[in-house]
């Protein structure tokens, strides 16, 4: 039956095509594919599938260069989530996803639905979610609007994850004016499954029914995918799609029902209806299976009356799944859903003919040559050119920057850094998250990496999300390498062997040469680091167009790393544990100051070359650390990152809120270095270890040709942290350190509550009073 336009649909004009974000070049491709003019419904379908968000048209050629294989990788990129084997017949599924644009418009719902989406990506692989992580970036916390976004996002993540009952165990929060207009909200989910329960979202079996499961479809977020593929201009603010509202209660039911369905043997495939809803889920499942599908939009359970095929196909209503069941098992599927008070409706079937067909009752409203709908989207490799201004920033001679008078007291500088909201304790955030539900969180937020045990085994996973956007701004190649290295180092500090990553590429508009340069270089650096550290990329997400008329965000390739802890006894906390333990510094101090939080916080500068990462050295560091841990020699391990060695020592001292320990530290071996670089520089490859067996730790490092030196001892808390360096000795009081670290964010947020100048600070969200 031929495709017929629906009465009342708008006619296709160049203006309408442009409004759908389809370029004249792409429209030509579409005409060639169809051999005729598209209908309005078809235009909508293509605009969604060929949007940046769904098609990766500006990133795919780059992503192909990433390493994706290792013997333990069971599922690489291309599915809802990546999967690695962890032994004992178990596997771990994980994925990261951004919800930047929705969170900028409605922080609470935007962040909440971001969590919902990433949970579904993981449980549709047959995995039970066991942990969530969040990676957040906002502008300066002094701004009321930023506080509104920050508190709304945190509450949104908490309310959703808490209700579904998945612990949020780690994350990162960065505040920098670069994110003022474009906050970044990335959420990662990790799930556990038996290897044989792995299921892929591949439509198969001619005649098999396609079933819509879960919530009804409303007019929410229509064109969310293409919306996420544009800059945030005022014009876009006005045409913003209707906000998606999350329903974590339905999600919890959907989670249980989906896992039961997958284990029941009644279905062949299941996929989340995420961005571009029904359209992308059905087209992608069909393309993966190289089969055709037909869908009748009149069968889709709708929440509102009079919804058109265009709306039903593009709606981004939350908490919905698409299932391909085995023919004849429809009633079994319905029975499982009914047990969980959810509905299931057969809306189509798998067909032999290789077409993607949509009907509205008897009328065919859209029809494409199946797989080409997904594969014919053009890819682009635009011009790449580094910005001269950024190069100049990087080449600044930061060693020549004069110290402020206050800096004559290093404790002043240390306190200033610890109270930087980016470095300070994020307890204000994760106290609002249920970090313990499922009673498997061995190390929750506050450690270097989170550790979640795998019940029934003696193993655990170590998890971390990381990125330093300022480094990536100054040098995207080095910055991306560093993000992988730091994530791996954190995982190793907690006792885990880094295994694989997922990643979220948050960038500006790729059509600008300086942005595409950043994207290309970051992907190159990430790939190189992943090869060196043997942590292949199993998936990820790309979020481009994070810019507004004032400019783009810092390039921010967030790395989500999963490591394996071979024995629970290897789990290692970051903070000191026993007075009398020796403190060993693994790695070398250097004169590097570029890109540091010190320059940013004390001098207001994002400048200099970010610290170099020696990937071969990082690999030896990880081996040395894991050997020392396995040998039972390590009481605690904490890496040096933002704020450098002095901040790392302070965090080791006051990191355990219930028990502080002091330290007596002698750094005079490095008296040749400028004091501020020694204390606050961010040289890579350094870890502060506390140990009762310093000789064993040093010997282990020596075997791997890694620098290690005893620099002091853990002391009872009355001591504070006396440090000898650069010919002097200064002492930081623990209470002052703890107050700077723990009090910084609460103080800013409390001030917010009483001096808010913008809407919404205490807006009572959809919570019961």
């Amino acid at each position, binding site marked *: 039956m031929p495709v017929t336009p629906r009465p009342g649909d708008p006619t296709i004009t160049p203006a309408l095509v442009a409004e759908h974000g389809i370029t004249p070049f792409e429209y030509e491709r579409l005409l060639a594919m169809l051999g005729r003019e598209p209908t309005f419904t078809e235009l909508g379908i293509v605009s969604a599938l060929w949007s940046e968000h769904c098609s990766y048209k500006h990133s795919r050629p780059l992503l192909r260069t990433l390493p994706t294989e290792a013997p333990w990788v069971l599922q690489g990129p291309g599915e809802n989530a990546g999967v690695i084997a962890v032994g004992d017949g178990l596997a771990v599924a994980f994925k990261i996803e951004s919800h930047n644009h929705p969170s900028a418009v409605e922080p609470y719902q935007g962040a909440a639905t971001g969590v919902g989406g990433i949970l579904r990506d993981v449980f549709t692989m047959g995995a039970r979610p066991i942990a969530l992580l969040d990676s957040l970036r906002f502008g300066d916390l002094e701004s009321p609007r930023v506080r509104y976004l920050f508190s709304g996002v945190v509450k949104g993540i908490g309310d959703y994850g808490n209700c579904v009952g998945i612990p949020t165990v780690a994350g990162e929060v960065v505040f920098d004016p670069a994110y003022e207009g474009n906050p970044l909200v990335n959420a990662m989910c990790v799930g556990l499954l038996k290897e044989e329960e792995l299921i892929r979202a591949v439509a198969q079996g001619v005649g098999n029914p396609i079933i819509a499961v879960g919530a009804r479809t409303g007019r929410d977020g229509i064109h969310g995918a293409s919306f996420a593929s544009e800059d945030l201009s005022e014009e876009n603010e006005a045409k913003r799609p209707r906000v998606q509202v999350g329903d974590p209660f339905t999600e919890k039911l959907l989670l249980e029902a989906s896992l039961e369905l997958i284990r029941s043997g009644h279905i062949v495939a299941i996929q989340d209806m995420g961005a571009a809803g029904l359209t992308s889920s059905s087209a992608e499942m069909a393309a993966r299976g190289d089969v055709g599908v037909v869908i009748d939009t009149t069968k889709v359970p709708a929440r509102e009356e009079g919804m058109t095929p265009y709306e039903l196909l593009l709606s981004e209503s939350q908490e919905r799944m698409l299932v391909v069941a085995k023919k004849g098992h429809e009633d079994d599927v319905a029975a499982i859903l009914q047990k969980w008070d959810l509905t299931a409706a057969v809306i189509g079937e798998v067909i032999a003919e290789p077409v993607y067909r949509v009907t509205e009752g008897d009328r065919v409203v859209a029809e494409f040559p199946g797989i080409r709908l997904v594969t014919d989207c053009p890819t682009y490799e635009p011009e790449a050119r580094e910005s001269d201004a950024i190069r100049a920033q990087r080449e600044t001679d930061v060693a020549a920057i004069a110290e402020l008078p206050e800096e004559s007291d290093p404790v002043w500088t240390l306190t200033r850094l610890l109270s930087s909201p980016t470095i300070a304790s994020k307890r204000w955030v994760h106290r609002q998250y249920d970090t313990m539900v499922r009673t498997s969180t061995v190390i929750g937020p506050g450690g270097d990496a989170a550790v979640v045990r795998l019940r029934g085994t003696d193993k655990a996973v170590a998890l971390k999300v990381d990125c330093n956007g300022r480094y990536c701004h100054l040098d995207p190649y080095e910055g991306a390498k560093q993000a992988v290295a730091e994530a791996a180092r954190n995982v190793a500090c907690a006792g885990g062997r880094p295994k694989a990553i997922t990643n979220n590429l948050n960038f500006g508009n790729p059509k600008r040469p300086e942005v595409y340069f950043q994207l290309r270089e970051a992907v190159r650096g990430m790939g190189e680091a992943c090869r060196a550290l043997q942590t292949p990329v199993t998936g990820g997400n790309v979020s481009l167009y994070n810019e507004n008329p004032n400019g783009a965000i810092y390039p921010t390739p967030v790395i989500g790393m999963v490591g394996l802890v071979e024995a629970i006894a290897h789990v290692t906390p970051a903070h000191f544990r026993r007075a009398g333990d020796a403190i060993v510094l693994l790695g070398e101090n250097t004169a590097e100051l570029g890109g540091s939080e010190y320059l940013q916080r004390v001098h207001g500068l994002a400048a200099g070359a970010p610290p170099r990462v020696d990937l071969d050295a990082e690999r030896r560091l990880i081996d040395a650390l894991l050997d020392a841990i396995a040998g039972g020699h390590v009481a605690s391990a904490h890496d040096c990152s933002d704020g450098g060695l002095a901040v790392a020592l302070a965090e080791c001292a006051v990191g355990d809120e219930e028990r502080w320990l002091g330290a007596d530290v002698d750094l005079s071996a490095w008296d040749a270095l400028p004091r501020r670089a020694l204390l606050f520089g961010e040289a890579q490859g350094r870890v502060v270890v506390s140990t009762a067996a310093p000789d064993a730790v040093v010997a282990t490092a020596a075997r791997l040709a890694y620098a290690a030196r005893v620099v002091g001892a853990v002391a009872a808390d009355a001591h504070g942290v006396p440090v000898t360096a650069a010919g002097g000795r200064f002492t930081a009081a623990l209470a002052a350190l703890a107050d700077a670290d723990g009090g910084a964010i609460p103080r800013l947020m409390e001030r917010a*509550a*009483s*001096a*808010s*100048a913008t*809407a919404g*600070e*205490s807006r*009572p969200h959809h919570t*019961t*009073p």
Partner: protein
Amino acid sequence: MTASFRIEIRVVPRRGILDPQGKAVADALHSLGFPEVGDVRVGRHVVVETRAADAAEAGRRAAEMCEKLLANPVTEDFEIEQVVPV
């Protein structure tokens, strides 16, 4: 024979019970340039679409819904604000 009604119900925290949300809203209003605001209380507003023989019957049923489910007798008071034929 039944007709359609829209019933508007308010459920408010009983006086004397601490209402931290009301207080937070009052504080926020003060700092947003509404210094004239005194006490604020935040409750629930429930809109129920239903069918009944007549408005009186609809109101009676609504009161039952409140007693059974919509209001907590330990901490809340409810009021059927209006029953509107639709």
